[in-house]
């Protein structure tokens, strides 16, 4: 196929239905070769289903995907030797040792004995597992398991690596090590598709697709995505953040309000020329002292703009005067927040940037 060198994955209208549920809805993808491409979305947004269609585990209900120049559904067997796949949950054998697991995977790919032994040794040292060959995989820590799974997934030197939420059970420092490994692979020309629901992880990707309930709602580099969203982002630092939250929650033109410890991030449609004035006035009227700045949208702002505001047509194209549903943005709900957390609440502290659930979005399980 013509574009196979430039794009590792091309998909057009990729759709998967489970009964009446549309898990993936007409997704188009152009994933360039040698890049790290991220799928960002909450649980149930169709990330895993998309990945499974791309590696031939599921047949698309409609549309098609071309992976490494081959049809993902029809030529799935031919693709197995060229794709590495890391499942969401640890899927190596827990009752086998690290070395035995890698040896087994090497044998399954029919790598000749001498070469296999060399690669196992190389992978063990590269992924920091040297000296643990004899340890049962079930006795490894979360981070070690993920490194072992990655080692197994690249044993046959695949051109394309599909990782389904590889670090969901891994602490932040191990996550960083894991990503170092991914960058190393990308530098050697491996294309990597990684799904995540961590913002700090998505931001590391060269390119990013944001999925929301089976629909791709945004696609591009994190920088380009930030520029393309239809809202200004105003950051508010106030000593009395609760009061500020309450006051700003009453302003209809603020389409989204996110609480981050003592800070607030407000989104106001681009169409409004003076975002700072609106926020400043609201705070002055409430008698709250605060420091306000317009800032470049971070990934979370982008995510809010393209997912939560999308469904309600509030990405700046519409008038900001219509009332906002409580379920969309937990604004004006500051009082009731303690008792009933909204389903998609994003009111959490992330001051240290190290929390396990940093940028972790809640969503309905699918």
């Amino acid at each position, binding site marked *: 196929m013509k574009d196979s060198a430039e794009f590792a994955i091309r998909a057009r209208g990729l759709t998967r239905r489970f009964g009446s549920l549309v898990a993936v809805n007409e997704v188009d993808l152009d994933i360039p070769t040698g890049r790290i491409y991220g799928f960002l979305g909450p649980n149930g947004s169709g990330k895993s289903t998309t990945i499974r269609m791309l590696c031939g585990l599921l047949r698309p209900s409609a549309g098609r995907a071309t992976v490494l120049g081959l049809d993902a559904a029809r030529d799935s*067997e031919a693709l197995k030797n060229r794709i590495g796949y890391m499942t969401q949950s640890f899927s190596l054998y827990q009752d086998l040792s690290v070395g035995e697991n890698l040896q087994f995977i090497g*044998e399954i790919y029919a790598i000749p004995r001498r070469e296999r032994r060399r690669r196992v040794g190389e992978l063990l040292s590269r992924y920091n597992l040297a000296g643990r060959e004899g340890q049962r995989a079930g006795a490894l820590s979360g981070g070690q398991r993920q490194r072992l799974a990655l080692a197994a997934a690249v044993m046959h030197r695949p051109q394309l690596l599909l990782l389904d939420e590889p670090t969901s059970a891994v602490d932040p420092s191990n996550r960083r090590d894991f990503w170092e490994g991914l960058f190393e692979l990308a530098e050697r020309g491996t294309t990597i598709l990684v799904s995540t629901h961590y913002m700090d992880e998505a931001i590391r990707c060269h390119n990013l697709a944001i999925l929301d309930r089976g629909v791709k709602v945004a696609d591009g580099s994190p920088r380009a995505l930030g520029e393309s969203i239809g809202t200004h982002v105003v950051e508010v630092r106030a000593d009395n953040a609760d009061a500020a939250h309450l006051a700003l929650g009453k302003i209809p033109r603020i389409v989204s309000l996110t609480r981050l410890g003592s800070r607030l991030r407000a989104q106001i449609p681009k169409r409004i020329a003076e975002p700072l004035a609106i926020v400043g006035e609201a705070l002055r009227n409430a008698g709250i002292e605060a420091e306000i700045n317009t800032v470049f949208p971070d990934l979370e702002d982008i995510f809010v703009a393209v997912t939560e505001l999308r469904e309600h047509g509030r990405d700046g194209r519409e008038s900001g005067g219509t009332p906002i549903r409580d379920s969309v943005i937990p604004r004006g709900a500051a009082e009731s927040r303690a008792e009933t957390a909204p389903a998609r609440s994003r009111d959490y502290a992330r001051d240290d940037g190290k929390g396990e659930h940093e940028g972790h979005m809640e969503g309905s399980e699918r």
Partner: protein
Amino acid sequence: MKSLVRVFAVMRKELRQLSRDRLTFGMIIGMPLLQLLLFGYAINTDVRNLSAAYVDEADSHLSRQLIADMGAAQVVTFGQRVASPGELVALLDAGGISVGVAIPDDFDRRVIARDRPALQLLVDGTDPIVLGVAERLAAIPLGFDSQTGIEERQRMIEVRNFYNPERRSAVNIVPGLVGVVLTMTMVLFTSVAVVREKERGNLELLINTPVRSTELMLGKIVPYIVIGLIQLALILAVGRTVFAVPIMGSEWQVLLASLVFICANLSLGLLISTVAASQFQAMQMTFFVFLPSILLSGFMFPFEGMPEIAQGIAEILPLTHFNRLIRGIVLRGADISMMARDMAALGVFTAAALTLAIARFNKRLD
């Protein structure tokens, strides 16, 4: 060549896992031994010493002689003598005795005249085995000259007991037990072995590798063939030493018949594994097969005595054919060529189940 490497990889992995799974390992040895001892010692269709009572209204020399003869035959043990037939019935109702002997006051006259039955046996017929045993009492000769009585009876019909002159149940049960144990362990182990991989997520990893369904199935089956043969040897060895059950026919033919039977059960196990979603379901389905096998195959009750529908079902079950084969070879010293039909049936069953299993096992999740 690559195919062979993969089959061996799966086999080696399976054996490693098996050697670490102490419970399964224990079952391989423990289950045959336990069943052998249970069935060998506890199940005894040759019942002796049934509890009995009698009423002797004649109280003559002849009647006392008869009661003594009955006691000497060891079929019944007389616990008490009661005053009237009514009391015998009451004891029978209460479950205190299994057999009652009622001798009327004109017993001697009846014996001489031979115009009416001389005495009555009251038997608890709820257990057919007890009934059958009690009927042997009716064969005890009656008459003033007991010697002539015996000769008269034996000349009419002579029973020659072939193959099991001592009428020991173990002779029938030990070879049958080979089939029962193999059915239970082989079907259960294979079905659970595959479903476990499904449950633990290993399968999602495996189906993303180049391993083919057939290679996976073969690699899973072969280790269990070896285990089945170990069980076969164990049962026959213990049967020979503890229960003195000789092997009349050729050991090679026993091995051949068992091999085909093991393959039939393993294929059935694989088929179950492609249907069952969890290990628990696999176990349920195994028992669904196991129960009719044990009841209808002729292991417990003679095949010929069953209604036609039951016989039809039994013909589908591998254990029915194996019971004929193993009993034929081990007990009667028959040649396997005389039972080619049963060998063929096992072969057809294996081929059909294996084909279905491989066809049903697809390398997709949908």
